């Protein structure tokens, strides 16, 4: 089954994994994005995800369909969480199974990299000192530089709301 969802409900990694796999598949790849307890040395209390719900659902479904086609597997799915998340909670989960590992790893990687570029979702980081700010992201339609990110919430430079308004 090729599936995707955008939800305010807590994500259960086991349930995501349980929806892939087949007797012909020798590889299962699973990726989860998790809220970290610090960013650039600043203690983080949680993350607030806002989304353009209807479009996010459609865009995530399109990304997963593209990954399925590239991997030649229809045992693939992804779910993205919205709302206020505490440290340690899962913000995104992706599972793929395929006969061999290369296709499964590549498909999972494709989904996370594409959704970071295209999914209409924004996150506001909350700090232990009660401050909060929107994190800078990717402007859709512009290719990100080579190399990619090393961490889920790493590589995000902060910017003020005024600066955010001048993007583009």
């Amino acid at each position: 089954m090729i599936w995707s969802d955008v939800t305010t409900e807590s994500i259960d990694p086991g349930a995501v994994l349980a929806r892939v796999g087949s007797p012909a598949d020798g590889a299962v790849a699973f990726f989860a994005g998790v809220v970290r307890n610090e960013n650039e040395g600043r203690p983080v209390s949680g993350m607030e995800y806002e989304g353009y719900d209807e479009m996010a659902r459609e865009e995530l479904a399109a990304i997963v369909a593209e990954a399925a086609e590239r991997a030649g597997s229809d045992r693939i799915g992804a779910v993205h969480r919205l709302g206020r998340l505490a440290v340690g909670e899962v913000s995104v989960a992706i599972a793929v199974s395929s006969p061999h590992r290369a296709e499964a790893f590549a498909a999972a990687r494709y989904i996370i990299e594409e959704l970071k570029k295209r999914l209409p979702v924004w996150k506001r980081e909350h700090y232990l000192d009660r401050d909060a700010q929107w994190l800078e992201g990717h402007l859709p339609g512009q290719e990100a530089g080579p190399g990619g990110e090393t961490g889920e919430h790493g590589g995000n430079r902060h910017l003020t709301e005024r600066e955010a308004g001048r993007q583009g």
Partner: protein
Amino acid sequence: MPGPPGRVRAAPHADRDGAVDVTVLLFAAHRELAGGRADTVVTLPERSTVDALLAELRARGGGWASLPRRAAVAVNRRYASGDTVLAEGDEVALIPPVAGG
């Protein structure tokens, strides 16, 4: 998967020549620039483009003036370019730099 909840669209004005109403959606930092308003209906001349709509919004002054001149925009939930021509009832979302994951 729950279906997309229907958004309320501006009522069509079939009897009004030369103008179209579009619904503009704002998110995250853009919404805060606009004083917290998530959506607003804007009346534009017929055949107006996405870029013309952005200019119209910025001309409102205040925080609106800080909206980007050229932004990522989705028309009816698909990414669209600045020269896209808008039609009556279109849902136009300004998309700040995205940060999912």
